[in-house]
């Protein structure tokens, strides 16, 4: 009996080993990044692939926004490509072709979250935040990219493309209005790897984390504003909780003041009850009737008056500012 058992065990082991061997047979294209069920905060994403150059001669990356093609040559096996995403759930199809014939297809499910849209504010629980800049990940890139920080503290690049960050992240600053530190590639002045009270759990996960809440970083330069807003009686919630980045994109934006969306849609993203009123121009508020922006009357940061209404001085100041701009 004992002998029989031993034989059975050995047989099971053998089976397991062969199963492992079969399953470990590598597909022609390995998607290193992103991992499955990744949670993303930006609408751009880098896809990193390891391609078997003998089996594959081109790769297509498809999603709802569009498709990108990678031509594979014999010289290197690791490829990366930046793709655009849309808010919410995304499915990336990575298709490998050999002489026009599809030989392999892989999928990645991603979720792009944004605090500005109520429907994308709370992602489904299966999606998890991922961090790229770890030693393990960086080692894959090192064959092509210099992964060190070549930024001198407090001195901006004369030629910004010299920055080691530029090659992969330059999409971030391509919008019309760009924040000076980001467009001058002084990345580490904010991305210093430290964590704050809001993201303490991230400590050590990545090399270039930003401390959250971000206001201490913002107010490091925007000192006058910090002082002014603190003196007011009423303060807007995102200001008080230090999440400037809720409305502003600290890198670049197509809208003035680096706001993430047109002003009104930012406001109405949270203040849903006003949404219909503004749309139908049916409100006590004169501004809605005239079709003005919310910030024409309401201060988005802080005010001494109720409903964040601006004082006359503030209005005048803004008008003169506007006037100045128009003159230029």
């Amino acid at each position, binding site marked *: 009996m004992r002998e029989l058992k031993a034989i059975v065990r050995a047989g099971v082991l053998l089976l397991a080993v062969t199963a492992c061997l079969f399953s470990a047979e590598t597909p022609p294209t390995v998607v290193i990044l992103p991992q499955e069920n990744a949670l993303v905060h930006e609408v751009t994403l880098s896809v990193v692939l390891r391609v078997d150059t003998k089996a594959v001669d081109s790769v297509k990356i498809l999603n709802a926004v569009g498709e990108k093609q990678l031509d594979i040559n014999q010289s290197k096996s690791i490829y990366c490509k930046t793709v655009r995403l849309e808010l919410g759930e995304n499915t990336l199809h990575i298709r490998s072709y050999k002489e026009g014939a599809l030989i392999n297809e892989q999928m990645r499910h991603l979720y792009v979250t944004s605090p500005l849209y109520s429907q994308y504010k709370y992602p489904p629980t299966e999606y998890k935040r991922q961090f790229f800049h770890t030693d393990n990940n960086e080692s894959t890139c090192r064959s092509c990219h210099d992964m060190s920080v070549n930024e001198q503290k*407090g*001195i*901006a*690049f*004369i030629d910004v493309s010299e920055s080691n960050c530029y090659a992969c992240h330059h999409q971030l600053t391509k919008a019309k209005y*760009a924040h*000076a*530190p980001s*467009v*001058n590639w*002084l990345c580490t*002045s904010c991305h210093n790897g430290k964590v704050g009270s809001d993201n303490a759990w991230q400590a050590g996960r990545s090399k270039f984390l930003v401390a959250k809440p971000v206001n201490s970083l913002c107010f*490091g*330069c925007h000192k006058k504003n910090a002082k002014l807003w603190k003196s007011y009686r009423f303060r807007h919630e995102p200001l008080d909780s230090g999440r400037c980045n809720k409305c502003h994109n600290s890198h670049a934006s197509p809208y003035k003041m680096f706001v993430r969306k047109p002003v009104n849609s930012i406001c109405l993203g949270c203040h849903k009850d006003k949404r219909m009123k503004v749309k139908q121009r049916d409100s006590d508020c004169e501004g809605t009737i005239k079709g003005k922006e919310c910030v024409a009357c309401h201060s988005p940061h802080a005010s001494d008056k109720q409903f964040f209404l601006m004082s006359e001085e503030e209005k005048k100041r803004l008008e*003169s*500012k506007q006037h*100045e701009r128009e*003159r*230029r």
Partner: protein
Amino acid sequence: MNKNVIQTLFLILLVGSGFYFYQTYNVGEKLDRFVTIMGNIAHSLQNAKHAYEVDINISDEELSEINITKISKEMKSSIDKKKEKVHTPRVAPVAIAADEIRQEEKPIHNKARAVKAKLVRMEDLPKKFKPLKKYLHEPFKMGACQICHVANTNKPGDLVRKNIHEICYECHKTRYTKKFDHKPVKEGKCMDCHDPHQSNTKKLLKADSINNLCLKCHDKKSTFKDRARKQFVNMKLPVKHKPIVKKSCLECHDPHTADHKMLLNLDAKMDLCLDCHDDIKDKIHDSKYKHGGVNNSKKRCLECHNPHATKHKKLLKKDQVSMCLTCHDKEVKSDEDGGMLMNMKKHLKENPKWHGPIKNVAKEGGCVACNDPHGSNNFSILRKSFTKNFYDNFENKEFFCFKCHEQKKVLEQYTINDKITKFRDGDVNLHYLHVNDRKGRSCRACHDEHASKYNHLIRDYTDFNGIKFPLRFIDTEDGGSCAPACHKKFEYDRIDPKGIGR
């Protein structure tokens, strides 16, 4: 038995320890001293009545010899001197003090003694003394040769004493007892400078003027093999200190003795200079921002100035700009706020395009055209107000720059005049755009005050919130372009406008 043993052991221990303490603490000596002190006290208590009685015996002869007037004068002068020292150590001008001393020097010739001696008449004087000169030594004038010379000897001119200075000091009683003595005075060589008989110069000097007398030794060519040759004054140089030319060396130096080095009556580094230079005294002491070179240096005024004569204006030791760069050739700690000042020499070396005043020192004045080396109420010891800020609009402010540069540059919105400004896009004055209104930038936002690699002194980096942003300025024939952190790359062209500011 046992008891006895313990007792003896105990005794031995007691004696031993006693001896040990006696040895180590010198008990005997102390006791002796105590006894003598007590004895003294007892003795003085007994003889207290006689303690202050003194026996003095003065003969009538001795009494008659005491010259009361003289003593009283001497005493008075010494008291006066003390008063001077106590009450007004700094305020009392040097010149007056020196004059008083000179007055004291005038001896009162004891005529009685002179009369007793044999007087020589003018006609009987040896031929070498004729014709007589303008100023005569008093004994020589009286013909009282015997005060100094031995009478009735074969050798005419034999002296009463071996050392000449001892003879001098017999009448000229004011001994030179201050901290520093002139070397001839110290060595008793009065005759090096003074003629004992007669001279055409005051004070019986051996030269035609005081300065020439000094320069006899204190000259580079002097044969005098001493320190004097090193401490020479080159009077051939074009810029000379006025007192030397108009008056004499004695305006500052005392020829005999003084309390300060270099035979000066006040501290040479600064006090002496400020005694005359009142305007600069106020600047140095009262200005809000002080120059470390004067305020906090070893040699004070003499760091930069030569007190006698130099090649350069304002008695500077070197050419104006290179004078500043002798210290500013490294990062220097600022007296203003304790920060480090930039290495200007390196800055000027690295950036070949210099600001006018530095480039053309002779015409426009060099560094001191803008910075006041003695101190100022404006930061960076500037002669007039300026700003440290990046944002500081032009309105209602008297910026120092506009002392030389025309205000039209920033005030005229539209111009096609190249003389007013070349920073134009067509006729749109881009200076006007940058400088005016609420967020008007100061000149220093774009321009470097000292030197730059680029034309028009455009900075390579501008400091904004502690970060250095490059301006990325490119100069073209009819315009140029900038791509600072403030805006994207904007081009301007004077002839073919690119449409900025429209």
